[in-house]
């Protein structure tokens, strides 16, 4: 990286140095001088509207705003001169003139930037004796979102929320209405909000205008303690702060306000789902079935029953399958993998998330995938069938910022137009399951243009050829196309200088759990006498149970039943087992079938490290006082020593986990070196079907606000579920199906009744249905995200 020129300047008599382009407010902050700000925010473009940051610069006729003025050579800045102090007091007085004195009942009280600045920089009293502005009279109390509380009278018009909405969320849902002192933040015609990143406007609001409505009037912020944690609801795996009250109960979740690029915002799932594990469905007590009688036990007593159960599992080596899902920490996955190999001596260590291409991706891209910094500095971003808003909103956040703040060019490809298509330069329709074909055609076109290509496709080819730094992001559906897709995209990346690849798998700690548990890959030092040829996907295990070669199953994770594809079949299979041991945070039909069900901590109570899809290492402290029981890693460690292993501390597991990751990264790097000579891009085209011929392609994914069944358990997000079939408008017109009409979907021999919503954002011949909206019995036909699926639509539900 080239050195950035530095300039020298003086602030309040202190001589300092800063890179060219740094704003005064930042230069001052670095040397410990606080300049108050409202409209300025480190992740937003400068605005200069609130004027609270006015400072004096020698020889400048007027005061200038420190949040918009870059440092200059030889600049002499005063932030506490008489002129500045008076101007600031004036601004504070103006801001408070119309601000209601309702701090005692305002939820922002205690962490209100307006309070802090007024206290520190204000005059202490106001000369305003006239009538305060009141928006409520005219507009009533409009509820703009069920999860946000909105009090326009408290607004100081800093426009952080509207800018977040435009530059960060990319939704443009809220904006300023009217002008002058009647200006107010609102949605257009007061429509309700639908942002996947909902709540960030509340996060950045310096006053109590927009606050988290789910915790309104419930607590005071000075009674709350922030606990560093990680959200496992998707593979962005964002760092969070989980706030607990005096009784140790979780009261809210916010983004950590650190100066790291990833950490100022959260998506709606991460922010509002915290009530999901507080309900009746939480597994709080363990159960053990002994001679047909169920005994319950406390989590703290779970060691002895668990030891007995594991002894039973270990008896019959090779006949036990260990299944985990991605809502576990790296340390937990590592211990699960180790116990499976060394104690249970079984090769069957299987992840619940079905990603054909994931092992291949990890082999080639571990530690080399695009980071958030790469996305932010890219000049071209290509989204290949990646509905980021639904799958990983916070990776979508980086893409939005790159486009809206840094001017990156964006192109989208796939069977669906997503939120990002609307801010992109072109969308190329590409059939589901044919992402590899698109990548291969793109590679071909880079060498010689095809005459029959669409205009959008050619635009993408031009953009790739002209790019200086490209990032290609693929969603979970292309990943399900398997290793051939990974080879194709690797080949594309190797042909474009300075390009990076990012795949977004389903699940939470998907990458970390898979690497640490060592599924489908050899991990050094673990039971070399255990065969490597175990089951690799859940269907294999199901088949083996039905055949009788697997007699015991250990399931570890959270919300496991949700991940077992074709639950009715599993249920029958489980009845054949000798032992079914389940570690879960939630009660379900599965835990009631288990011979031993052990309650464990939930997705934000857990302890350990997480590897995000962007390759970042996040730490959850597991410090929530009201968490259910002890950490699963510690339980597994005790269990291991009880069963004859050496005693080991949690800290040493953490360092082993880090070493193991480094080993995987160096292996992936070596693989790249090896491959330079031989280009292995598969030339065989996918067998993408012909949409519209024998019915429609049914695209399955998460609902916008949901991640598995987990988020449905909470009242906050539970109210948002959208059970409707998104259908191409032209297709619907041809079939004479109107918007909102009820239809029956025939999939194989199963039928599902749904309402239709017509849209132009989905490819002709395709439909989209949210998996979360269906009950386990309704989705027996579901074979995993990305698996090709054909459905016949029967109009009117008359059949």
């Amino acid at each position, binding site marked *: 990286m080239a050195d950035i020129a530095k300039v020298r300047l003086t602030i309040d008599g202190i001589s300092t140095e800063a890179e060219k382009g740094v704003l005064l407010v930042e230069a001052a902050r670095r040397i410990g001088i606080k300049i108050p700000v409202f409209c300025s925010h480190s992740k937003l473009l400068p605005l200069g509207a609130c004027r609270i940051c006015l400072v004096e610069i020698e020889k400048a006729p007027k005061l200038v705003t420190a949040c918009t003025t870059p440092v200059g050579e030889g600049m002499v800045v005063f932030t506490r001169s008489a002129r500045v102090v008076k101007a600031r007091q004036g601004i504070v007085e103006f801001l408070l003139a119309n601000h209601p004195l309702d701090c005692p009942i305002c939820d922002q009280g205690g962490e209100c930037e307006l309070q802090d600045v007024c206290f520190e920089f204000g005059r202490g009293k106001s000369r305003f004796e006239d009538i305060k502005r009141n928006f409520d009279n005219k507009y009533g109390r409009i509820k703009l979102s069920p999860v946000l509380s909105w009090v326009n009278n408290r607004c100081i018009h800093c426009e952080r929320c509207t800018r977040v909405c435009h530059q960060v969320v990319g939704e443009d849902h809220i904006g300023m209405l009217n002008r002058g*002192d009647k200006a107010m933040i609102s949605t257009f015609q007061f429509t309700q909000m639908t942002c996947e990143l909902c709540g960030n406007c509340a996060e950045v609001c310096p006053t109590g205008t927009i606050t988290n409505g789910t915790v309104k009037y419930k607590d005071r912020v000075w009674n709350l303690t922030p606990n560093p944690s990680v959200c496992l609801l998707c593979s962005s795996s964002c760092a969070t702060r989980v706030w607990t009250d005096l009784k140790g109960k979780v009261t809210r979740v916010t983004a950590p306000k650190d100066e790291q690029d990833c950490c100022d915002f959260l998506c709606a799932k991460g922010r509002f789902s915290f009530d999901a594990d507080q309900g009746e469905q939480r597994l709080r007590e363990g159960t053990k079935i002994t001679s047909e009688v169920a005994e319950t036990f406390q989590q703290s007593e779970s060691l002895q029953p668990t030891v007995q159960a594991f002894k039973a599992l270990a008896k019959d080596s090779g006949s036990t399958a260990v299944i985990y899902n991605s809502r576990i920490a790296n340390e937990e996955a590592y211990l699960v993998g180790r116990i499976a190999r060394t104690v249970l001596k079984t090769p069957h260590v299987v992840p619940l998330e079905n990603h054909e291409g994931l092992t291949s991706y990890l082999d080639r891209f571990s530690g080399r995938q695009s980071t958030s910094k790469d996305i932010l500095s890219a000049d071209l971003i290509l989204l290949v069938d990646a509905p980021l808003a639904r799958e990983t909103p916070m990776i979508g956040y980086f893409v939005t910022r790159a486009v809206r703040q840094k001017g990156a060019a964006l192109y989208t490809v796939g069977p669906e137009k997503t939120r990002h298509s609307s801010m992109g330069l072109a969308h190329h329709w590409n059939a589901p399951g044919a992402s590899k074909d698109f990548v291969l055609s793109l590679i071909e076109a880079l060498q010689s243009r095809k005459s029959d290509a669409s205009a959008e496709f050619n635009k993408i080819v031009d953009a790739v050829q002209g790019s200086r730094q490209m990032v290609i992001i693929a969603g979970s559906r292309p990943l399900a196309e398997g290793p051939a897709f990974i080879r194709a995209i690797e080949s594309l990346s190797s042909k474009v200088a300075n390009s990076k690849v990012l795949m977004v798998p389903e699940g939470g700690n998907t990458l970390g759990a898979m690497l640490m548990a060592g599924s489908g890959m050899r991990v050094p030092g673990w039971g070399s006498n255990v065969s490597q040829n175990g089951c690799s996907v859940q269907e294999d295990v199901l088949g083996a149970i039905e055949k009788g070669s697997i007699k015991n199953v250990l399931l570890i994770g959270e919300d496991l039943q949700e991940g077992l594809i074709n639950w009715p079949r599993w249920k029958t299979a489980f009845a054949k087992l000798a032992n079914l041991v389940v570690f879960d945070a939630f009660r379900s039909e599965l835990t009631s079938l288990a011979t031993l069900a052990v309650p464990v901590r939930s997705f934000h109570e857990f302890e350990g490290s997480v590897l995000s899809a962007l390759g970042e290492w996040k730490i959850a402290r597991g410090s929530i006082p009201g968490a259910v029981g002890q950490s699963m890693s510690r339980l597994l460690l005790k269990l291991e020593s009880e069963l004859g292993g050496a005693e080991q501390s949690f800290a040493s597991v953490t360092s082993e986990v880090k070493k193991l990751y480094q080993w995987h990264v160096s292996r992936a790097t070596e693989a790249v070196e090896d491959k330079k000579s031989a280009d292995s891009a598969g030339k065989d085209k996918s067998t993408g079907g012909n949409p519209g011929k024998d019915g429609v392609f049914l695209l399955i994914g998460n609902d916008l606000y949901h991640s598995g069944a987990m988020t449905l358990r909470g009242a906050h997000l539970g109210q948002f579920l959208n059970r409707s079939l998104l259908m191409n408008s032209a297709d619907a017109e041809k079939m004479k199906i109107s918007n909102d009409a009820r239809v029956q979907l025939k999939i194989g021999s199963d039928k599902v009744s749904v309402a239709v919503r017509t849209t132009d954002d989905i490819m002709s011949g395709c439909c989209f249905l949210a998996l979360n909206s269906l009950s386990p019995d309704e989705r027996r036909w579901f074979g995993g995200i990305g698996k090709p699926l054909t459905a016949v639509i029967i109009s009117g539900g008359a059949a």
Partner: protein
Amino acid sequence: MSEPMKTLLAPDRNPSLEKYLARGGYASYQELFKKSPKEVVDMVSTSGLRGRGGAGFPTGRKWSFIPEKSQRPKYVVCNADEGEPGTFKDREILEGNPHLLIEGMVACGYAIGSNQGYIYIRGEFYAGYLRCVEAVKEARAKGYLGQSINGKFAFDIIVHRGAGAYICGEETALLDSLEGERGQPRLKPPFPAVEGLFRGPTVVNNVETFASVPLLLINGLDWYKSFGSPNNYGPKLFAISGNVTKPGVYELPMGISFKDFIYKTAGGLPKGRTLKAVIPGGSSTSLLLPKQIDIPLDYDSIAKAGSSLGSAAIIVIDDSNCMVMTAKILTEFYHHESCGKCTPCREGLSWIEQIYHRLESGQGKASDIPLLLDLCDQIVGNTFCPLADGAVPIIHDTIIHFRSEYEAHIAGKCCEQKH
């Protein structure tokens, strides 16, 4: 061939192309395309033409800021959002002589290498809008606009109506509004010459400024400089309103006597009235007292007297007016037009308006006078754009020069004796 065109105003106020050509219209193209673009910019610079919108910035210099080569298209934008109280000179050109504006914009487009112009016209000027649209259509039909003007230059104009916001007269707010955004001033730099409309280099000039260019091209530098004094050359439109017997728009050379203009040209004050104060350049400029108006009417002389020629909109105030109410009416205007972006303007002006309403209804307090002065002080220079800076002079000046009237209001004695 008729006489060369010499005036900004059409004597017959007929906007048609036929009449315009009869008056010698579009003759400047002959001169324009003989010159290189740089020669045109140089000529405008040498003429000393200053922006007629209010700030008086040298037009040639503004044009010279436009980079010769640009990745993005360059634009010529005419600011026809004339909305300041007392200002109505551009309207005369828009309604009575729109082809002159088109001719001037083509000259600018040629000089800076732009092929696209916009006329951003005030929403309330509906007649002017219709006439501009008609004029553009006529000019296009006859090849005065379009793909091939004089066989060598392409330039077209889009006429865009504003939605009735004074702030959109501020050039960057105008550009935002033109792009379809909310009309609020932008952060500068970058200035429009670097990154303006749709992020391309853009010249934004007032209607009269563009209209002056064809006259300069046709009649030459010597003719142009025969009006006025150094740094203040050219013929100029003056709008006079208020307490004079012949209000209206007058085209006069710069530098004529201010006093003569009021008392002779504009017919003087109504019988029996005496002069109380004059606002010389639109409602945003400082008051001049009767003793201060014995000066030439040009940018520099008025600046020396402590005010500004601004948009050359002279408002004459006689002794029938209450100065508190004058300030109140203008404050109501600025409060209504504040865009709400920055704190001092949004909050300050609404507060000041409330104080004036109290003064009007006899609820004033002695402390209101120092409070008003202090609020003015808290606003001026601290705002994002000059709108609020323009709202302050009338408040400040009426308190300084006519404090007794404020005190009378506070004491409950309004100004009825003056009517």
